[in-house]
């Protein structure tokens, strides 16, 4: 039996059966006479039962029986081999690449603060600017015949805080999650992103806070969709699965998901690996311009790519394609479903990608032609500050946003049985998330991070995000080699 966890309960259990009602994976079943039947092998460690047990009597432990392996082949290697030997299948996983075998550079960079030589700023008493404008900057100031400024500003996005919500499609997540994200984004003065599954009509009123996505499947994409948004994002790739397409199983294409994606119920929704109308930067430029034509040039166009080995020249090409914003999703970016080998082995960490892209665009003197959004493993406000100091204009958060809504990162999104009602379309489960309460929690999270960002910036004597962006002197490295420091463009601590 393949068993990762064991469900335990102690004397505090009052046999209320709440855990059995909450478990959506069939691991806890209510038997006769209020007894619990435990199927340990079905437990995914989502912690739903633990959170809802009124007496704190239930808890999940890791199964004590382990395959020892030999130090080369570990337990998970062996289990995966067994599974593939039995099924012949490609391993499917979800959420971002786990583990720390690939360094998390955010944890190896430390922030600066003012002492004596320049004053720090107290954000509680002094103004601190967290607003960010994303889009192309005009190359020069223009004046009319009488010397008045000509408004030659290309379309842009205005964020009150440099934190946006990442693209997560309706289908991969529930409509209630979309509602919570949209309402929170509107209240916070930032943006949420539909992902590639279209925009549900009930969310059209949030158009000023919405970024709509155009991916290779073109699901739900039509002229009205493109115009019901503040910006349009062309999705080339995502950090969890660079270079490959998507596959939403027909089981999730039901009801409104079908209507919103505009594909028949029960039919798989396949996103081809590439956009077959984009085989070059010139083709990309054409799609960017065709979107601008369809939206009368009033909306900025974002191009989202995964952080891969050639990210700097790719970003340079995107900057020259006419796109206004580049969104880069790092190695640790999340997903509703991706082949495990791809998720865990393809791409590069976002920290290195931001630094390489910012450096390259500056060298080519085209940094002001585009803004850069970074994502893929942003866990807290200090990650945000570090990402911006490395050169990003703003970040977007997906996993962190889901955690604010209840996600416990059990990485079972691809099963469609999410006990927290997020990555599922089962109406019994989706109703577990109250969109209003969810929006409030997202609002709290971003508000808290924004306060922390102000505090960190103030400590450094910086009073605007604009002044923090690309300010690599704010960062020093520890436990990094010379090459890593060179790519990150930072000095070693104490240097």
């Amino acid at each position: 039996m393949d068993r990762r966890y064991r469900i335990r309960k102690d004397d505090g259990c009052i046999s209320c059966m709440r855990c059995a009602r909450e478990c959506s994976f069939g691991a806890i079943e209510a038997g006769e006479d209020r007894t619990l039947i435990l199927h340990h092998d079905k437990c995914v460690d989502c912690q739903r039962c633990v959170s809802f047990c009124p007496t704190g009597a239930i808890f999940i432990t890791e199964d004590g029986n382990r395959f020892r392996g030999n130090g080369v082949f570990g337990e998970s290697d062996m289990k995966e081999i067994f599974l593939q030997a039995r099924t012949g299948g490609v391993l499917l996983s979800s959420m971002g690449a786990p583990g720390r075998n690939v360094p998390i550079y955010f944890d190896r960079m430390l922030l600066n603060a003012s002492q004596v030589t320049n004053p720090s700023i107290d954000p509680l008493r002094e103004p601190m600017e967290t607003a960010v404008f994303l889009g192309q900057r005009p190359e020069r100031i223009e004046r009319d015949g009488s010397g008045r400024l000509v408004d030659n500003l290309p379309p842009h996005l205005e964020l009150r805080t440099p934190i946006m919500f990442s693209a997560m499609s309706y289908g991969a997540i529930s409509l209630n999650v979309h509602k919570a994200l949209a309402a929170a984004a509107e209240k916070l003065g930032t943006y949420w992103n539909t992902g590639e599954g279209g925009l549900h009509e009930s969310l059209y009123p949030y158009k000023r806070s919405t970024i709509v996505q155009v991916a290779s499947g073109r699901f739900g994409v039509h002229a009205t969709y493109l115009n019901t948004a503040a910006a349009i994002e062309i999705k080339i790739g995502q950090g969890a699965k660079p270079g490959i397409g998507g596959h939403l199983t027909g089981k999730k294409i039901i009801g409104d998901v079908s209507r919103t994606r505009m594909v028949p119920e029960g039919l798989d929704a396949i996103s081809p690996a590439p956009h077959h109308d984009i085989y070059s930067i010139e083709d990309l430029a054409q799609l960017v311009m065709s979107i601008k034509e369809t939206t009368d040039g009033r909306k900025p166009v974002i191009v989202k790519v995964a952080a891969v080995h050639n990210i700097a020249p790719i970003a340079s090409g995107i900057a020259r394609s006419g796109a206004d914003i580049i969104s880069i999703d790092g190695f640790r970016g999340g997903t509703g479903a991706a082949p495990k080998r791809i998720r865990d082995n393809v791409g590069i960490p976002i920290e290195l990608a931001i630094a390489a892209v910012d450096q390259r665009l500056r060298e080519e003197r085209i940094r002001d032609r585009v803004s850069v959004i970074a994502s893929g493993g942003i866990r807290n406000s200090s990650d945000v500050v570090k990402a911006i100091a490395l050169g990003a204009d703003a970040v977007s958060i997906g996993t962190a946003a889901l955690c604010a809504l209840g996600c416990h990162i059990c990485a079972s999104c691809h099963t469609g049985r999410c006990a927290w009602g997020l990555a599922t379309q089962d109406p019994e489960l989706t109703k577990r998330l109250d969109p209003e309460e969810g929006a409030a929690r997202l609002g709290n999270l971003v508000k808290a991070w924004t306060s922390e960002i102000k505090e960190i910036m103030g400590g450094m004597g910086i009073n605007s995000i604009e002044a923090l962006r690309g300010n690599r002197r704010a960062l020093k490295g520890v436990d990094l080699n010379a090459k890593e420091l060179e790519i990150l463009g930072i000095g070693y601590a104490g240097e």
Partner: protein
Amino acid sequence: MRTVDMRKDGLDALKAHEGEEMEVTGCLGERYIGCGMKSGILHVEGTPGNALGSYLDGGTIYVDGNAQDATADTMNSGLVAIRGSAGDALAYGMRGGRVYVLGDAGYRAGVHMKAYEDRKSTLVIGGRTGSFLGEYLAGGIIIVLGLGDEQRDITGYFCGNGMYAGTIYLRTERTPLNLSDKLVRRNVDEEEKERILKPIIEDFASVFSLSADRCMSGSFIAIEADESKSYSQLYAAV
């Protein structure tokens, strides 16, 4: 009928008068003509550029000459009729409406076309097509007639690879080159020809003033996904 000279008036003039019937003259590769157009009729003379009628949302575009790449990209509804040939990536991700090409189409025609409720994307090619026709087809109908090329292969390599819904009809008896083993080829009987192909082909023929009988003559084969070999069998959840 209003006349718009592309070289003098440009795309803005087309947008300003959207919904009208217009003659578009002097085309020399201008891109994005009819992009997102919701209504109206364009008669395009000369050679329009790439992305003609992309996101087309109900309008009609007639092209006298050839069209270039990415014509009718992500089209939602309406009609694009091209008297000449079309370039690569024709009707990519198209969801509804009709695209008719009297001549040939290049590579990647009809990739990931779809159907949804009353929208049924229909692509008819009078001549032959390049490789990768109808890859990832998710719905809708593609018909290739191969008029005048009855003795040759009328599609290229990798026809219909990865398709999982919809049907490709070919007016030939020859199985497409290197047809994937995840697809099935079947012969189209008279009943299906009358019921499905005839209304579409008669419409196609009337747009180009052709004889529908000639377009319908001979036998047709159909290519469809083998439902026993779906994508989902590929995976094992960790």
